[in-house]
């Protein structure tokens, strides 16, 4: 049996997304000084990956300082329950917040 050469392609490190659709992820609780793109109100909260945004893109936070090389990773569209983000949320328990978050800000929950 001849295996397709396509099956033996090895992707580079960090070329593939680290998280996949439906996966639960936590936004890291960090307080970097300088330019950041993750609002404070979402840090430490747990959400669900709705979509992996293709293609991989450079890190906006690094780009802010002119550093573009080698920091291409994926953005994820992550959904959070409003009632999980805001303990006193006034509205339907089904209401959600969606946001795009760069891979360096997420960990598996």
């Amino acid at each position, binding site marked *: 049996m001849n295996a397709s050469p396509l099956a033996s392609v090895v992707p580079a490190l960090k070329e593939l997304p680290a998280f996949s659709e439906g996966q639960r992820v936590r936004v890291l609780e960090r307080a970097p000084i300088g330019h950041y*793109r993750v*609002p404070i109100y979402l840090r430490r909260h747990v959400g669900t990956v709705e979509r992996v945004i293709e293609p991989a893109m450079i890190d*906006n936070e690094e780009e802010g300082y002119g550093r573009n090389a080698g920091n291409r990773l994926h953005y994820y569209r992550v959904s959070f329950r409003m009632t999980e983000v805001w303990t006193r*949320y*006034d509205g339907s328990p089904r209401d*959600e917040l969606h946001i*795009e978050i760069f891979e360096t800000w997420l960990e598996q929950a």
Partner: protein
Amino acid sequence: MAQDHAHDHDHDHDDHTPITAEAAPGYYEVMETAVREILIEKGYLTANDIRHQIEVLDSRTPALGAAAVARAWTDPAFKARLLENGRTACEELGISFYDDTQLIVLENTAEVHNLIVCTLCSCYPRPVLGLPPDWYKLKPYRARAVSEPRKVLAEFGTIIPDDVEIRVSDSTAVIRYLVLPRRPEGTEGWSEAQLASIVTRDAMIGVIPVTLEKEAA
């Protein structure tokens, strides 16, 4: 008016009140001027590049987004492509994306109402809507849209029933969002141009629905 026009036209001469800038430039204005002058001096940009980009920005208006919405309402195949990849579908219509952003189009349905905000600054789908309204850039809207969206919507006159999910999209990095509003009843058989005429900027941000009363607006 003191101006004596030799040519024949009928515009309102009250518009000729000069715009004056009497206050000294502020900190950020001075910084912008300094950075711009340095970039030009060092040859990274020309004054014409900057002028041209302003012209590009000024050429974008909510009429472009409205055209995409009207096309989606009348052409199911286009709608599918628009929801799959907002940017490439808009590019089909000739709307270019000059700023390297992607576009996700969010469809309002009987079950889901979408609302767009940028809590960090003023990310906005400028290629398809032009410049954002002032309230979109101000802190009260930015802070409250993510924490009490139903109250914010009510202040715009939009009451969302409890059984309809509110989905707030906070755009912060490389993705821009555009709401595909629901097509109102009573527009059956309308042309694409007629439909586009009732689609407003605010409906594509998600703070109001599209209604027939907007036709004259």
